[in-house]
């Protein structure tokens, strides 16, 4: 479904200052890794990843970083906003033991995938939730993951919680145990996770985000080099074999005009 639906914000939860989760009572039928376009009439429309979806309710978690994501922090419970989706490809559960690596907002889809894996019968002890942030106050969904009993590995840049360092440091310690690695986060982090997975010959699936305008494969702003794949249709979730073909992964992305910008 790609037509816009107007939905009431049922509940808002502040995850930490400047970051909120917005809950909608709506059957979205989304899969982890997919996204929705969020429309605030008069303010604009942007793609947002889905942080959770239990079939009856879904939510999105948004940090106020740009003009739009800051504006959305002002939305109140009971307000109506426009939603288009779910859009794009999703993660596919493969193997017996998995690592879910999230950075920043990427924690949402990773926690969603952990819940789906448990729901589909994977043992929680075979699921590793690897989450990184600058500091402990910015970690997302630790309690949510404790509830379903998966292994939690935390890294912080400043060492205020968990291991001091990067998510790849935590991933290195468990990589031999896992069959498949999933990752959503800043692109350079994703590239480091991909390289590590390649080095250890592990399957991996990564969400590659590009400037998205239409979300339905028409405008071409999210096409990657050299394949021309649209990250709203053929992506955003790509597996290791597909990522191998995307030469711009970890190197550059295009802005709203179509100009290349290096990472």
């Amino acid at each position, binding site marked *: 479904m790609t037509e816009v639906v107007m939905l009431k914000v049922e509940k808002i939860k502040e995850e930490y200052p400047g970051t909120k989760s917005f809950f909608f009572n709506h059957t979205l039928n989304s899969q982890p890794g997919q996204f929705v376009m969020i429309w605030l009439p008069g303010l604009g429309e942007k793609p947002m990843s889905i942080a959770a979806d239990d079939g009856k309710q879904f939510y999105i978690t948004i940090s106020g970083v740009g003009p739009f994501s800051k504006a959305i922090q002002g939305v109140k419970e009971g307000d*109506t906003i426009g939603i288009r989706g779910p859009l794009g490809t999703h993660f596919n559960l493969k193997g017996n033991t998995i690592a879910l690596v999230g950075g920043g907002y990427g924690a949402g889809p990773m926690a969603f995938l952990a819940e789906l894996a448990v729901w589909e019968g994977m043992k929680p002890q075979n699921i590793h939730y690897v989450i990184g942030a600058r500091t402990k106050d910015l970690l997302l969904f630790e309690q949510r993951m404790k509830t379903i009993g998966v292994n939690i590995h935390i890294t912080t840049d400043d060492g205020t919680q968990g291991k001091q360092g990067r998510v790849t440091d935590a991933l290195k310690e468990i990589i031999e145990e896992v069959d498949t690695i999933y990752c959503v986060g800043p692109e350079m982090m994703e590239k480091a996770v991909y390289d590590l997975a390649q080095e250890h010959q592990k399957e991996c699936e990564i969400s590659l985000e590009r400037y998205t305008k*239409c979300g*339905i494969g028409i405008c071409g702003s999210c096409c990657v080099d050299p394949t021309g794949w649209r990250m709203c249709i053929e992506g955003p979730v790509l597996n290791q074999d597909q990522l191998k073909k995307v030469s711009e992964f970890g190197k550059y992305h295009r802005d709203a*005009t179509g100009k290349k910008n290096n990472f």
Partner: protein
Amino acid sequence: MEINLSTSLCGVRLRNPLVLASGIVDTTASALLFALKNGAGAVIIKSICPEPRTGHKEPILHAIKGDSMLNAVGLSNPGLKIAVEELKNAKSRTKEPIIANIFASSVEEFGYSAKEVSRANPDLIEVNISCPNVEDEFGKPFSCDPDLAAEVTRAVKENTNIPIIIKLSPNVANITVIAKAVEQAGADAITCINTVGGMVIDTKTAQPIISNKVGGLSGQAIKPVAVKAIYECYKAVNIPILGTGGVMTGNDAIEQLMAGAVAVGIGTAIYTRGIDCFDKINQEIEEFMQENNYNSIKEIIGLAHKENKK
């Protein structure tokens, strides 16, 4: 007998009559190649102007029930310098026709853009004088005034040796007047049609959905408008017509060829049927030709103008 899907546009051979329309998944060389890989006979890059443009704020597009959509992207493009590099890159990666597309805010700038874009040596240059979505910035499109449309045509012709296609607007009183004017001014072909002006309002919030408020309607809803424009222009001018507007199936393509188009643009079908719609539509054209005893596309072009042909 072997079915021949090839056609030609201003002397450029197309392996089949389906052309990726300008503005649809076509900002980069890679995107153009992706459409060719999926069966397009030729591809047109998204409209280019001298300086980079980010386009309108999102929402830029709204899907409408019944295989149509309203868009106002606002002519986002990286500017001539980068776009010429993308065109060169595309040319180096394929032998299939690569078509440039330019727009500008003045007659002089059209001439300048034609000269610059020719450096990439595209097979053809389409001239967008008819985008309906930038009126606030550019005033009425050049497509509404036969004299201005002719002036733009002359300016472009003076600055390039590459054949040019003028893309006409359906949002005019009589499209054949414009078609004749650009033909007389030296246009090598015309595209019929650009999108039809339209608007969608969300009734819950009482707000226009796309940020530009008004936009261009494409897809199934506009196909009869396109067929009429092609049919009338075919009678009015002697230059070839690139039909565009609402072609979703092989039968739709055949209809526009019969109206007089030598090739047809594909846009909204990519949304409704996927990027491989080129392969699918080509297959459908071939099946139609087999069932109806046609051997080549050339036999079909303009057939609707001949009485009791079948």
